């Protein structure tokens, strides 16, 4: 054996590489398989393995192609890869150099779904503003489901447990298969015409293909257009279908759909108890606050000290009456002063004039009068003396002394014989006494 039998590693690898390059079958291959070890390098190139049950092959996709992909490749994706097979001499491996990669089968469906989601979202069909509120206490709920499904049993059990007050109508519907789409659309529209409170569109879990009706864009648009609030409960928690995006409420399962559609009677009883409690509490608070109000009114200082109601007025009154008195006094004083001054003026005037002159006049008159009276009195005294003297000279007593007398009958002086009658008692005045005589006889002188 000579040494030149041996090839260098590079020579062999180059030879093998040449074989790959020159092979027309390897120039362009279409391979289907499942992605594994998919890894996007920081350079932007995608490294992956493509495998099936028995084999696997490495693959690479350069950045420029990666950027054109409509999906983000991940492990487990079933894909169809379009590329050529080449050898990488650096580590002696061969790999598929992918120029394109698309999702295979269901994967393609998902791709379509993604596009539908984007479309409907861009049209605004997912917007919150379109979500109708789900009635809290529905009277009538329509279930669009298969009447033989486990889902329907779950839902009825849930309704019975939670809120048996509601009427449930079941619209038996094909939930999978080719005819399912039209049947679902038809039943949705029919249910919408019945004026129910809520429509529940629901089916249990199944394969992705089984649920595909609910990723249909026409079904989704129909759900969106209904006037009745729609709750969707499709498949399992992990399944989100297109109708879930447009429905008014997405429940993860059929049972969850019922839980969203009806209240729970246990919590309703609780709510009613709470209401009862609140009503009682508020009523008591109200009563208490009214009582407090009443108390505070009763304790209002003006009620407690009614005098405070008029204290001020009394003070005012005192103040005013003091003022009044003061005013009155000052007016009175003023007037008094004025009066006094006038009075003294008047007195002065009187004093200075009339009174003095009257006084003098009176005094003069008085003196005159006194003089006159004295004069008259003197004069009369003199006359009286003269008269007395005269009288003395004429006094009957003197005549009586000379022996004369005068007689009276009944105090009447007798001057004529006719004054005397027989039996008259005659009184005769003598010088030193009186003689009583009884007339015995009367003799008249003859003529």
């Amino acid at each position, binding site marked *: 054996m000579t040494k030149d039998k041996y090839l260098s590693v590079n020579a062999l690898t180059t030879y093998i590489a040449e074989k790959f390059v020159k092979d027309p079958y390897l120039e362009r291959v279409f391979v289907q398989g499942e992605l594994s070890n998919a890894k996007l390098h920081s350079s932007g190139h995608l490294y992956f393995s493509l495998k099936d049950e028995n084999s696997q092959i490495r693959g690479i996709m350069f950045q420029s192609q990666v950027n054109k992909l409509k999906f983000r490749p991940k492990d487990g994706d079933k894909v169809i890869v379009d590329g050529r097979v080449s050898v990488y001499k650096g580590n002696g491996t061969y790999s598929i150099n992918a120029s394109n990669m698309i999702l295979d089968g269901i994967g393609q469906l998902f791709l379509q779904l993604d596009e539908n989601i984007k479309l409907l979202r861009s049209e605004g069909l997912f917007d919150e503003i379109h979500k109708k509120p789900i009635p809290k206490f529905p009277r009538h709920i329509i279930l669009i489901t298969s009447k033989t499904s486990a889902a329907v049993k779950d839902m009825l059990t849930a309704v019975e447990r939670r809120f048996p007050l509601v009427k449930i109508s079941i619209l038996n519907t094909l939930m999978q298969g080719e005819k399912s789409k039209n049947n679902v659309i038809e039943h949705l529209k029919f249910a919408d015409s019945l004026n129910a409170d809520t429509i529940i569109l629901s089916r249990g879990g199944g394969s992705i293909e089984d649920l595909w009706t609910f990723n249909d864009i026409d079904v989704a648009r129909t759900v969106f257009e209904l006037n009745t609030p729609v709750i969707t409960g499709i498949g399992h928690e992990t399944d989100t279908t297109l109708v879930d995006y447009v429905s008014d409420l997405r429940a993860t399962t059929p049972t969850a759909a019922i839980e969203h559609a009806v209240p729970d009677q246990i919590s309703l009883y609780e709510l009613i108890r709470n209401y009862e409690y609140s*009503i009682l509490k508020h009523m008591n608070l109200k009563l208490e606050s009214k009582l407090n109000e009443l108390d505070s009114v009763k304790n209002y200082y003006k009620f407690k000290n009614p005098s405070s109601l008029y204290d001020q007025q009394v003070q005012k009154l005192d103040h005013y009456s003091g003022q009044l008195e003061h005013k009155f006094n000052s007016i009175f004083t003023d007037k008094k002063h004025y009066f006094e001054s006038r009075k003294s003026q008047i007195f002065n005037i009187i004093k200075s004039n009339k009174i003095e002159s009257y006084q003098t006049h009176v005094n003069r008159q008085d003196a005159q009068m006194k003089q006159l009276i004295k004069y008259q009195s003197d004069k009369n005294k003199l006359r009286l003396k003269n008269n007395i003297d005269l009288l003395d000279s004429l006094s009957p007593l003197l005549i009586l002394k000379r022996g004369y007398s005068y007689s009276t009958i009944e105090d009447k002086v007798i001057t004529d014989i006719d004054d005397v009658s027989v039996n008259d008692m005659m009184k005769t005045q003598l010088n030193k006494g009186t003689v009583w005589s009884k007339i015995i006889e009367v003799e008249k002188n003859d003529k």
Partner: protein
Amino acid sequence: MTNKNQSFEDKMKRIDEIVVKLDSDDITLEESLNLYKEGVTLTKECDDILKNAQLNIEELTKDDSDGE
């Protein structure tokens, strides 16, 4: 006051209104007493409705209904 024909929902709504009104300051004592009475009656009625409820299930077919 309470109306036997009111739905459960209406009654619950009314009770809620009553609670809110009772909580507000601008009602008279008389009004609150009336609301209190109404509220207590309504809660009893709601209790009864729930206790006596029986699930009513029917199966619709579109063809039947079309014929109506």
